[in-house]
């Protein structure tokens, strides 16, 4: 009885701890990875309510009236091109009683008819009609019943982002110096022609989505988490590819750059020198010997450039909160629940090269993730298990903090450091905190 009385009288709602106390200079609180309410709030604010989020690549919507089903946080969303080719994003949620309208992954459609009661919507969101309209009153105004539109959809050179925040900065301002790194990645393809239609490795792990984002900018883990890969690579003698992560990486030339708004990049290119060096250091993939012989015979002086395109970009670019460019792949972070995440590795092919080059690109885009990512994801899952202990409260990101000589400010104001610095986590958590508390409209 007393309990009920208290409830009616209105006890103050449980006050959530101030997020500022949970994100510190050198550490973050475990509940950022385990708390359902924080997760629910992230899905609204970080994944579209305040921030830009990556939705799709334009090559996945190749023609007028193409559509693609995606998620914006937990919201089901349809990205469409209208008949003029202009991009839109609408909630995949019927404005009548809520059913999803589109249940296909992708295709071409001028309109969507809801399978429940048959309301029909244009691919730009307007309600076209309802069955037996006489059942609605005179005052029924179709224009009030369109699909919920994602207010801003913008593309940067084929990468489509969206936000529900009218006062978010322009996309290029949000991306900031990250655009230069995206340009490098895009311009490796002759004419900048990147095609995202070569299959997707949809990988899932039982852990929070930020474990993947933490890892994407982490140059500390490869020597340990990827030991099996490094060991496998030495089966036939000298270890290739990521071996430089295994030699004391702090002495090497690799660096990590903080690009603002939670974006960062690890640049592995200084480990290579000159045309043909990516190819020379690539772990051998099926068909390598044959394609090399053919390309060298046919393309002579241009062969090194072409062969290098079979190999990953040697940058790991993280664009907050959900786009990770790694190798030749576009990886999208798709949270499913506080402790469940899908990582979609979209394989890419490129225009302007002989087909044999794209075929070897397929084989290199199998090698990693297959022999690398599962070890990381096993570690993410074990982190999530470990974080179940409430008394051990903190996750540390203090490597490189206050270490003299590590961080440098470049002429462009971009802070960089050695690749094992956990600066990436400290950097993006500042953005995270800002979006989750006051900010987002900068």
């Amino acid at each position, binding site marked *: 009885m007393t309990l009920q009385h208290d409830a009616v009288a209105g006890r103050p709602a449980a006050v959530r701890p101030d997020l500022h106390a949970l994100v510190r200079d050198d550490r973050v609180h475990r509940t950022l990875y385990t708390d359902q309410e924080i997760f629910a709030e992230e899905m609204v604010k970080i994944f579209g309510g305040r921030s830009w989020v990556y939705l799709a690549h334009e090559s996945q919507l190749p023609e007028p009236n193409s559509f693609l089903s995606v998620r914006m946080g937990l919201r089901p969303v349809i990205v469409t091109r209208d008949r003029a080719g202009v991009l839109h994003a609408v909630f995949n949620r019927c404005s009548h009683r809520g059913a999803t309208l589109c249940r296909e992954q992708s295709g071409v459609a001028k309109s969507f008819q809801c399978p429940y009661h048959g309301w029909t919507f244009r691919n730009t969101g307007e309600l076209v009609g309802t069955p037996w309209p006489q059942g609605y009153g005179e005052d029924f105004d179709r224009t009030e019943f369109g699909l919920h539109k994602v207010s801003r959809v913008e593309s940067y050179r084929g990468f489509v982002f969206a936000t529900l925040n009218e006062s978010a900065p322009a996309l290029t301002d949000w991306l900031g110096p990250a655009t230069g790194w995206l340009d490098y990645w895009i311009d490796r393809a002759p004419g900048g022609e990147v095609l995202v239609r*070569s*299959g*997707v*490795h*949809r*990988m*899932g*792990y*039982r852990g929070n989505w930020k474990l993947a984002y933490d890892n994407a900018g982490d140059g500390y883990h490869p020597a340990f*988490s990827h*030991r*099996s*890969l490094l*060991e*496998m690579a030495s*089966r*036939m003698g000298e270890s290739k590819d990521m071996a430089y992560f295994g030699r004391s990486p702090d002495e090497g030339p690799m660096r990590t750059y903080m690009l603002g708004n939670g974006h960062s990049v690890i640049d592995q290119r200084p480990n290579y020198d000159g045309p043909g060096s990516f190819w020379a250091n690539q772990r*051998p*993939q*099926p*068909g*390598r*010997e*044959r*394609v090399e*012989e*053919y390309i060298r015979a046919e393309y002579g002086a241009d062969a090194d450039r072409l062969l290098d395109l079979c190999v990953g970009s040697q940058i790991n670019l993280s664009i907050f909160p959900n786009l990770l460019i790694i190798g030749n792949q576009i990886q999208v972070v798709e949270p499913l629940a506080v402790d469940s995440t*899908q990582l979609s590795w979209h*394989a890419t*092919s490129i225009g302007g090269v002989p*087909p*044999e080059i*794209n*075929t070897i690109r*397929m*084989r290199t*885009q*199998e*090698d990693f993730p*297959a*022999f690398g990512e*599962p*070890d990381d*994801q*096993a*570690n993410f*899952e*074990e982190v999530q298990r470990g974080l179940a202990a409430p008394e051990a409260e903190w996750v540390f990101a203090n490597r490189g903090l206050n270490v003299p000589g590590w961080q440098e400010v470049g002429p462009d104001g971009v802070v960089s450091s050695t690749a094992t610095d956990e600066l990436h986590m400290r950097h993006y958590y500042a953005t995270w905190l800002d979006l989750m508390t006051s900010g987002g409209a900068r």
Partner: protein
Amino acid sequence: MSTEIPARFADTSSWSYHIGNDYYRELSRQSELLREDWPESTSDELSRATSFLTREARLIDEGRFNDWLELFTDDCLYWVPVTPGGGEPTVEVSHAFDDRRRLTDRVYWLRTGLAFCQIPASRTRRVIGNVETTVDPSTGDLLVRSNVVVHEFRAGVTKAYPGWYGHVLRSSSDGWRIRLKQVNLLDSDQLHENLTLVF
């Protein structure tokens, strides 16, 4: 059509000269054959194929991957497509597209004891049924098609992977060798956790 392999590339556990356009064409021919309607199998072929598949399954389920590797030909392919049915491997990625070298790598990798995704290791048991056989008219290889469910237990979680196998078996002096093993998971293009078990 087979390619002349230069002598220095003859050891296919170290070299992969033989995977070229002609190899992909032959793969797509075989893969199509594996999806066609076949005449009823003879009972002799069927029982020999079934016992081969059963033995292969046991080697995998007992973690005897080196012995399993010995079942494959030099020009073998262990193929787990992402696209249901196989798709077009020259322009699409697969879960596994292992020639002899990569398959040797895979077995080596599983046995490093350092692959954290396999610590603890997957325990598996697979059930194979609906076996059909026919002979490839252009090579004389035996084609075997079967349904399979692989049950896996690892790290506290039990999962089941239903699908079908397509095997291309070539006879050798000491029995059949696997030229192609195509593993068609029912949900190959969907979300999977830790797909590092051997199918």
